[in-house]
């Protein structure tokens, strides 16, 4: 009996040590990202004045095709397209891809922009579900609507890439809002390093709580909904810290599907968007890395912190849980598809740092964290684990979490200053502390649920139930 007790105690201690070690490794990784992001912002502070950016680069800007896949967006699509058409950029076309919407999305577009059926020669290089019709607008010669059978976002983007006539395309969500100078800013890496840059991503911010008029953010505000508020801090951390840091060292493995620029020829060469994953944005970026590394060609995937795309965050637990478990599935699908890259010297830093961080944060992280929540407090209360173990676990889950979140917020305040008022900063600081007391734990549960779904082969996207931007 004594031996069994000892064995159980050793097992519990062993598990606790593994959990704390994984948590510590994650925390150290995040702190490194914070330092790298601070360095990146210090070296290349964003130019606050859009006019100056325009004056510096207007004559060099290449044409861009904006691809906006839309599925059941009848309530917002017209406003979104109007907003896209008024972007501050000299040469661009807008290609809305109606991905077999069951509502009146196409009708709303036809009426608002007086669409007419047109013929347009295009390069059919990527596979996608059949196109039913192509429409152009006499009012806006740079607007086209592709009406196709439903095939999912990746499928719709592939259809858009085929129709795109610009060397660079912008992939986005039709229900997101781009700031007027977002294209002008996100294109900058392509101008700075035209021979190497194949993709460039911008920042996605939470629009809940902002005042929106005519498809534009006219006043930045914070959401009142606590879930959306937690996500505001979370997005700051994800974009301003993680992506900026990984972009600086050349290992960025994701450009958000809500807003990213890609060199069309590079994406076509790599085979376009994968249609069999729910994480098509991450999968494409990882595939681009793999494509160029396999061929030993130089390339760069960049992230620019200042161009902003605003998106509506889920405000209910059920919607948010579906989104998070889907993101987790997407990350795991990408990891599984490209697992050969992990720690493979052929892929350099992308294989070690980029894929290593996916392994740590997305694959083992959620399981370890949830195990810790279940084991450490219980066995501490039962007297199996000492108080030291409990403190150490709290340190890696809570204290480091606070330091990293508040650190990201500090970066935002020092370099970008997008948060409008001092009292909003106070609220966000409190949120950065509070998110570690409940929200973080919920996220761990949703991500473990996503892992379970992935293991069972679930492929559903799930309803997102957005409420739409209020004008």
């Amino acid at each position, binding site marked *: 009996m004594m031996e069994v007790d000892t064995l159980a105690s050793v097992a519990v201690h062993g598990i606790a040590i593994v959990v*704390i070690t994984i948590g*510590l490794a994650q*925390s150290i990784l995040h*702190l490194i990202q914070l330092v790298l992001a601070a360095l990146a912002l210090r070296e290349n*502070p964003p*130019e*606050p*004045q859009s*006019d*100056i950016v*325009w*004056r*510096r680069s207007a*004559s*060099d800007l290449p044409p861009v095709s904006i691809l906006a896949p839309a599925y059941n967006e009848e309530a917002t699509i017209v406003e979104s397209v109007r907003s896209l058409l008024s972007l501050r950029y000299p040469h661009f076309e807008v290609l809305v891809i109606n991905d077999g919407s069951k509502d009146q999305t196409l009708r709303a577009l036809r009426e608002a922009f007086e669409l007419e059926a047109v013929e347009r*020669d295009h*390069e059919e290089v990527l596979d996608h579900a059949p196109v039913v019709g192509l429409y152009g607008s006499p009012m806006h010669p740079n607007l086209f609507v592709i009406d196709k059978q439903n095939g999912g976002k990746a499928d719709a983007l592939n259809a858009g890439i085929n129709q795109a006539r610009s060397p660079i395309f912008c992939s986005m969500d039709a229900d997101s809002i781009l700031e007027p100078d977002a294209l002008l800013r996100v294109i900058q890496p*392509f*101008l*700075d*390093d*035209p*021979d*190497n840059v194949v993709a460039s991503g911008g920042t996605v911010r939470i629009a809940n709580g902002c005042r929106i008029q005519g498809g534009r953010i006219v006043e930045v505000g914070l959401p009142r909904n606590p879930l959306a508020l937690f996500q505001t801090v979370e997005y700051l951390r994800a974009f301003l810290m993680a992506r900026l840091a990984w972009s600086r060292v050349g290992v960025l493995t994701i450009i958000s599907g809500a807003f990213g620029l890609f060199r069309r020829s590079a994406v076509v060469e790599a085979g376009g968007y994968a249609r069999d994953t729910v994480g098509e944005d991450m999968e494409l970026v990882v595939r681009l890395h793999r494509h160029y590394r396999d061929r030993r060609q*130089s390339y*760069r995937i960049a992230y620019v912190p200042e161009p902003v795309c605003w998106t509506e965050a889920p405000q209910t637990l059920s919607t948010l849980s579906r989104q998070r478990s889907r993101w987790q599935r997407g990350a795991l699908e990408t990891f599984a598809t490209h697992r050969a890259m992990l720690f493979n010297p052929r892929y350099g830093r992308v294989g070690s740092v980029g894929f290593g961080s996916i392994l740590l944060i997305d694959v083992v992280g959620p399981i370890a964290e949830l195990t810790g929540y279940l084991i450490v407090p219980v066995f501490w209360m039962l007297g199996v684990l000492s108080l*030291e*173990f409990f*403190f*150490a676990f*709290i*340190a*890696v889950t*809570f*204290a*480091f979490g*606070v*330091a990293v979140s*508040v*650190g990201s*917020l*500090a970066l935002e*305040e*020092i370099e970008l200053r997008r948060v409008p008022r*001092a009292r909003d*900063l*106070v609220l966000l*600081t409190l949120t950065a*502390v509070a998110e570690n007391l409940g929200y973080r734990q919920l996220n761990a549960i949703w991500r473990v649920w996503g892992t379970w779904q992935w293991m069972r082969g679930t492929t559903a996207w799930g309803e997102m139930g957005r409420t739409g931007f209020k004008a």
Partner: protein
Amino acid sequence: MSLLLLLAGLAAALALASLAGMALLIVGRVLRVRHEAELAQCRRGILELLTRTTVDNVLVRRYVDRAARHGALAPIVLEVLGIIRGSARATFVMHLASVGAARQLRRRLRRGRSADRVRAAEALAAFDPREAAAALRRASHDRDSRVQVAALRAMIDTGVAAPFDEIIRLALAARAADQGRALSLVEHMSATSCRETSQLVLRVDLRSSIRVALIAGLGEARDMATTSALVVVARDHDPYVRAAAISALGSIGSPQGFETIVRALRDPSWPVRLRAVLAVGDLRLASARSALGELLHDGSWWVRLRATEALDALGPPQNARDVA
């Protein structure tokens, strides 16, 4: 103390430090509100130079000095210069110079953050070369390549003799991440001094990307005197150089370059054929009709598409010579 406790202590200290830092930033934000109001007043004061025929120089000088102290002068100047042209611009710059703005910008160009130095160089481009030349020349050797590029561009814009060698040297030395900016400068230099740079494009020892930028500048300038140099480089061994030359010939539109453009429709490299097709369409070169017809079966989709568009632009054949 055990390792676990040390870890907990370290994490707690970090969390507390981050919160303390954030508290300081929040206090800083509260204080900055007043500071920003002050800068807004400076901006308004400087903007008054636009609307007043007589201004209180002492007051405006105070605004300029205050804005300069906080690195806000260059952004204000650039903002205004972005919206005014002609005599209004000249008067505004003259007033600014009379209250010491150029001096303040020169000072800013010497120190401060790179981004501020870049803006100062850009703003100085609007002033009299005598006010700016020496400072810009010094800044063209700045430790930061972005400042160098901005200073050299400002030198070109102010009419200070463009230091060709300096610009080419910068483009040759630029890191990959700065290549675009350096090449844009080369193109700008070429467009503003095309007769001088037209000989540079013939130098085969220069890197292809630099020659392409020089050629693009010549195309932008549309000076017919550069046609003969472009006709020569349109036979270069490098397809990127040939493609750029054909584009430039298309922009210039000199009849001296027509034969070269039409010949490029049969170039082995598809980007060259594509540029030639675009040039033929823009210039409505009916003599290229049959060659365009052949390109409807080209291996490149882009060449086929643009050939269709070019034929459409040419319209139906007008006479037998056209058809031939």
